[in-house]
């Protein structure tokens, strides 16, 4: 397309130069005659190298910007997806405890480390840590144990730099089991701390 344009321009320049030459020659041979010279004269002024380069660059720029916008939108979408996923993981991934214990196991600490970095990246978010127990033992002892579990998780987050006033705790004891079974598999999953993001 550019090439076609330059070819036309070259043709035009040639035509103009030829008319001058013919005019000069005619003075000698024939009578003066007005020629309609003006029209082609007033057409586009000649474009300089720089101007052309600038225009081309601008076109290129335009194209790149559009490209970037598309790419950025995709990235933003991807980031939002990732963000939602992280947010969901924050709420959906519980930490689990041993029977009648509230110390943090290694697997719980790993999960809490991820939760910590998410909380540090989202300084405006406040959360509730829920402490839960399996269905064995008394309602009452389990409520106290659930509170200990929630407090263990909160202590970890605060020690890792999350502001304490962003975290509240509550114990549900054995009252809200995730899994209904009367077996170790269900009990192990029910002994947990669960994390809930406060609605903004």
């Amino acid at each position: 397309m550019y090439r076609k344009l330059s070819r036309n321009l070259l043709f035009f320049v040639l035509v103009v130069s030829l008319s001058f030459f013919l005019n000069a020659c005619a003075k000698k041979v024939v009578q003066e005659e007005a020629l309609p010279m003006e029209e082609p004269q007033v057409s586009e002024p000649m474009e300089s190298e720089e101007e052309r380069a600038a225009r081309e660059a601008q076109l290129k720029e335009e194209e790149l910007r559009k490209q970037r916008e598309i790419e950025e939108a995709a990235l933003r979408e991807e980031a939002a997806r990732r963000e939602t996923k992280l947010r969901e993981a924050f709420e959906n991934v519980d930490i689990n405890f041993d029977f009648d214990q509230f110390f943090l196991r290694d697997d719980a600490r790993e999960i809490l480390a991820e939760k910590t970095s998410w909380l540090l990246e989202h300084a405006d978010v406040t959360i509730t840590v829920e402490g839960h127990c399996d269905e064995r033992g008394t309602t009452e002892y389990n409520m106290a144990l659930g509170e200990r579990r929630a407090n263990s998780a909160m202590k970890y987050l605060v020690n890792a730099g999350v502001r304490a006033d962003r975290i509240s705790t509550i114990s549900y004891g054995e009252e809200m089991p995730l899994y209904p079974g009367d077996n170790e598999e269900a009990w192990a999953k029910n002994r947990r701390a669960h994390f809930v993001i406060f609605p903004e």
Partner: protein
Amino acid sequence: MKERSFVFILAFLCVFSFKVTTPWAKVYIDIESPSFRKFPIAITYFTNVGGGDKKESISLEIFGVLCQDLEFSGLFNLIDPSHFIEAGGEDPESDNDGKIDFNDWSIIGAEVLIKGSFCCNGDDLKIEAKLYDVFRGQFILGKRYVGNRQDLRRMIHKFSDEIMLSFTGEKGVFDTKIAFVLRESTHKEIYIMDFDGYDMRKVTDHRSIAVSPTWSPNGNKIAFTSYKKGNPDIYVKDLISNKEDRISRYGGLNIAPAWAPDGERMAVTLSVNGNSEIYLVDVHGKKLKRLTKNWGIDVSPTWAPDGKKIAFVSNQSGNPNIYVMDSQGGNVRRLTFQTRYSVSPDWSPRGNKIAFCSLEGGCFHICTMNPDGTDVRRLTTADSGNNEDPSWSPDGRFITFTSTRDGKKSIYIMRTDGNGQKRVRTFNGRSSNPCWSPRFH
């Protein structure tokens, strides 16, 4: 409204005692002595003296309730009615003391005999029940009950209570109730029912989690924990006025209420200072005194009937165990050592035993011990699932508890020697936290 009708029935269920017990009945039986032998008892179908037809169902119902109560009492062996010699359906008008041929009863081995009659007109029901000593050919006890048709079970429970009184010197507990928690989808609500599972009534409608019901000493109120407002707070429901108060709502846990025998104070567990500790509060939730002070969990207080001591659960040794302290705090002593997990203490109304729940061989079992921690006895057997939450009957002769032996967690009752274990009733949801009422006056 329901609770109001409950009181209404109490007021209108008139009882007439129409002969004083004989001196014989004053010789009480020590049913806890090892040499105790159950009394063979003959329970006859009560006769209809009121005319009209289709009253057989009433007769059957009376028979059913009497059999259930007296069998569960552990005091009697029921004699199969097919062995009876005396023909049923004799002229009821002639059914008086002089006309009973006690030989007919002693020949089949009966030592005790129950006869009676009823009269039902519309909604009105009148029942007369009599107890005889076959061996001596003597009348022991007679009662007349006048009330509503729907009070039938209550009337017979009251008669069973009188039978227990004449044999043991202490009234029975057949006219008492059990408060408990029933899971309804995701909610838990508090209910009360007769000790045998009949006449179930809903106490809370919080559509939240309501647990740990406990009766006031006079049986008019129930204290419990509910998440109705988000936090576990302690509520008191008046069963007479139906009024409900949230009495304790400090930050953190407000759980495990236990009325003092005086009915004026409660021992509760609060975590307002960051750690769950037992406090003494008044009936409005005002803190009177902090009773425990250690780094561990302290929960589930239960009062000695004289109000001088409180048993509770603490994990100050690393695992939950039963401890005892003075009711003003202090003098703390550990009672359980045999397993690493013992919870749910309930002090017997007689004062001589503490029931609790212990983890043994991977399962929870109901145990009893003396208040000094000696003489630990396991009452539930190895193949009976998880057994938890013991609560004494007001005469200290029975224990209600939960068990998973038949699948889902249900409420059971048994005698304190572990005999007579039976499921009270099955509900759609899981039931838990049974608490036996005091006697109603």
